[in-house]
């Protein structure tokens, strides 16, 4: 054990020294810490909520907190069942696993390391402390309780994931059973909320009663941890202690079953550790693109029809992307993200419609389409990062092929430019039919959505062109966001001014059109301005 303690001590010391040697990083951390302290002081020194002061309904916090914990649990457990889970790094595998140290001690080290990592991760949730306190009228110790609760939830769920992987790995029947239990868990959650929602007359009030239902707190782990946190917030110490004890018991049970069951867990975590390392490397080298193009993240592809069959010169990139897209989805541009986008928007329209109706109002279809446009555009930001354009930048061929950099830039970005056009056309047609909305409004939503797809790529191209790949990814991301704002702003400002001035005399579509046209002009301008980007940026995949 002394060897592990030595390693941990040295690791901590070297990390601190490395930080001192990189003042920019140190300043950033100090700045974040100062912000955090300021945020906490802001909450701690705020006057106690006065009687009669109005705050947002605390039941929203109940629902949101439970939802976040549930999301993490679902993601971690499903991931563990499908791909495995690990607390270790490749250095641990290569140096510790082959050493004569006891596997149990190594496991304890892994658990401790993971606990530290989880704490560090949720530490930044404290930034939301001030916002939570001001919105819901809670005090800083309540915020702290919620943060500690999420840390505990993450840790215990990771323990459970490790145990599940250990027990189910190599047994398809067990994996199916475990997945079945998880889906059942979700079904129970949905069932409890839906029943309360229906029973309460499908109103907003009923929905809030549903998501904050005490019945949800009976559900293991996520429910228990939520109950403990809100027990503290409500001053119900008995409830808090009961649920803390249950959670602790579950955690201890996981560890005991894991350690007693199969000590030889090395094989179980090896593959996942290798995969995790590859993913870490991808993020380190490729930044955001690495995050969405992680090795092993893609589903298994089937080879049926082969060959590019078209393309000559720079447009070979486009036809290659089409070939790859065909392999990922038979309908080429229409894939799971299209379905997801439609499902989310339909769900949102249905849900908001019901809530408004129950409250005696009717939401205008135009307003619903506007919400759908804004939300879809937000989602598109993330989907775009997984596009063929981002993947192309990670391979050397885009830089090596003897064609003009402008032609390569256009053809390599073409499928990523076209995807929002196809997705948008389907999405807004479906939404228009479902909401029985004005087709012109739907067309406007489609145009805004499609033009934003172009702006997102243009912003990325501009950031790459201005800084180049060798720069810090955080800096590129910051500049990317800044460029996006600068690119969108003029069009948005003009449209807003027009809307304010002429909404009574001209149709909205004409007034919002300048934003669409501006998006397209600005994107085209960026592409032209950055036409030599591929000659000026650096390919760093292997550095």
């Amino acid at each position, binding site marked *: 054990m002394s060897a592990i303690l030595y390693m941990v001590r040295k690791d901590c010391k070297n990390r601190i020294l490395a930080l001192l040697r990189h003042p920019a990083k140190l300043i950033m951390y100090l700045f974040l810490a100062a912000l955090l302290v300021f945020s906490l002081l802001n909450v701690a020194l705020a006057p106690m909520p006065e009687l009669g002061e109005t705050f947002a309904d605390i039941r929203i916090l109940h629902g949101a907190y439970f939802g976040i914990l549930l999301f993490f649990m679902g993601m971690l457990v499903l991931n563990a069942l499908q791909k495995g889970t690990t607390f270790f790094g490749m250095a641990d595998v290569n140096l510790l696993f082959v050493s004569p140290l006891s596997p149990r001690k190594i496991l304890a080290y892994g658990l401790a390391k993971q606990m530290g990592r989880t704490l560090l991760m949720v530490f930044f949730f404290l930034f939301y402390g001030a916002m939570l306190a001001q919105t819901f009228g809670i005090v800083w110790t309540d915020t702290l309780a919620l943060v500690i609760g999420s840390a505990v939830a993450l840790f215990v769920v990771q323990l459970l994931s490790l145990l599940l992987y250990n027990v189910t790995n190599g047994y398809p029947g067990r994996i199916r059973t475990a997945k079945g239990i998880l889906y059942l868990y979700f079904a129970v959650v949905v069932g409890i909320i839906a029943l309360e929602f229906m029973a309460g007359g499908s109103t907003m009030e009923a929905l809030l009663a549903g998501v904050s239902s005490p019945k949800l707190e009976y559900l293991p782990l996520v429910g228990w941890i939520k109950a403990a946190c809100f027990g503290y917030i409500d001053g119900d110490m008995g409830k808090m202690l009961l649920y803390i004890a249950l959670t602790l018991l579950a955690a201890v049970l996981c560890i005991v079953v894991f350690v007693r069951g199969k000590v030889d867990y090395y094989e179980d975590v090896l593959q996942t550790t290798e995969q995790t390392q590859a993913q870490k490397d991808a993020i380190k080298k490729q930044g955001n693109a690495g995050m969405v193009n992680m090795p092993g993240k*893609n589903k298994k*592809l089937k*080879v049926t029809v*082969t*060959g*590019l069959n078209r*393309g*000559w*010169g*720079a447009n*070979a*990139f486009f*036809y*290659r992307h089409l*070939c*790859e897209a065909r*392999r*990922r989805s038979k309908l080429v541009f229409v894939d799971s993200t299209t379905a997801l986008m439609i499902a989310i928007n339909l769900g949102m329209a249905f849900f908001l419609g019901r809530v408004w109706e129950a409250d005696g109002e009717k939401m205008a279809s135009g307003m619903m389409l506007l919400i759908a446009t804004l939300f879809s555009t937000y989602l598109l930001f993330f989907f775009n990062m997984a596009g063929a354009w981002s993947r192309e930048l*990670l*391979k*050397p*061929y885009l*830089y*090596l*092929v*003897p*064609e*003009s950099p402008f032609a390569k830039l256009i053809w390599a970005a073409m499928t990523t430019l076209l995807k929002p056009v196809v997705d948008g056309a389907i999405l807004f047609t479906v939404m228009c039919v479902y909401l029985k909305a004005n087709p012109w409004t739907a067309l406007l939503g489609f145009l805004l959505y499609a033009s934003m797809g172009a702006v997102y790529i243009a912003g990325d191209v501009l950031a790459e062109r201005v800084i*180049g790949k*060798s720069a810090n990814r955080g800096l590129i991301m910051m500049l990317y966001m800044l460029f996006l704002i600068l690119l969108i702003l003029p069009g948005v400002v003009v449209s807003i001014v027009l809307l304010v001035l002429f909404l009574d005399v001209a149709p909205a579509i004409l007034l919002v059109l300048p934003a669409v046209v501006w998006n397209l002009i600005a994107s085209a301008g960026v592409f032209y301005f950055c036409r030599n980007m591929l*000659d*000026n940026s*650096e*390919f760093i*995949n*292997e550095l």
Partner: protein
Amino acid sequence: MLQVTDLSKVYHNLVANDHLNFTVEPGEIAILLGPNGAGKSTAIKCIAGLLRFQGNIQICGHPNKTKEAKRCFGYIPEMPSLYEALTVREHLEFIARAYKVENWEKRADELLVRMELDDKQKKLGSELSKGMQQKVSICCALLPRPKVLMLDEPLVGLDPHAIKELKQMLLELRDEGCAILVSTHMLDSVDEFWDKALIMMKGRIAAVRTRREIEASGEDLEQLFFSITEGGRDGGTL
């Protein structure tokens, strides 16, 4: 031919390449030798146009980032980087189409057979081992029949047959007049086919020897290498 004049590359505070000067003539195999971190890979990436640099690099008489230069050279990276959703044969088809190589099929068949990939043509990039990916990478670089070829640690990860075949291919390319630059830190692996050795140390070229010079003087390349890399002798001994 490949001509490198005053090539420098600086990462933040680190000088990876410091005023490199060398040429590789048609029909010549030059090896970039040096310990880990000497700047060999950086130099090759600069020549391939993947990194920004200071200085002048001419390939077949054209600046290295021009279309004309790119049409002339082939590059085999140290870490192969294939498209996950493309089959082995589609990689070659893509290269043929992107490089506008007419009647590429026969050449592709020949390369695939020599690299023992002919029975794996329908395998996806994501399904290949690192060694196999390296073989596909080699086929892609050789398909357009480059006049200048750059290889970064090309033998790492290859099986004995592929090593033998690649060495044979390099000799054939040399006989056809191709200028070849191979970066390696393993002297033994390139011992039988080099014509010019460029020994790098701390980002600089510390010594240049042709095989003829070594044979005439009786100097030992390995000893020279160690005297530079371990004896602190660098620069000024060209």
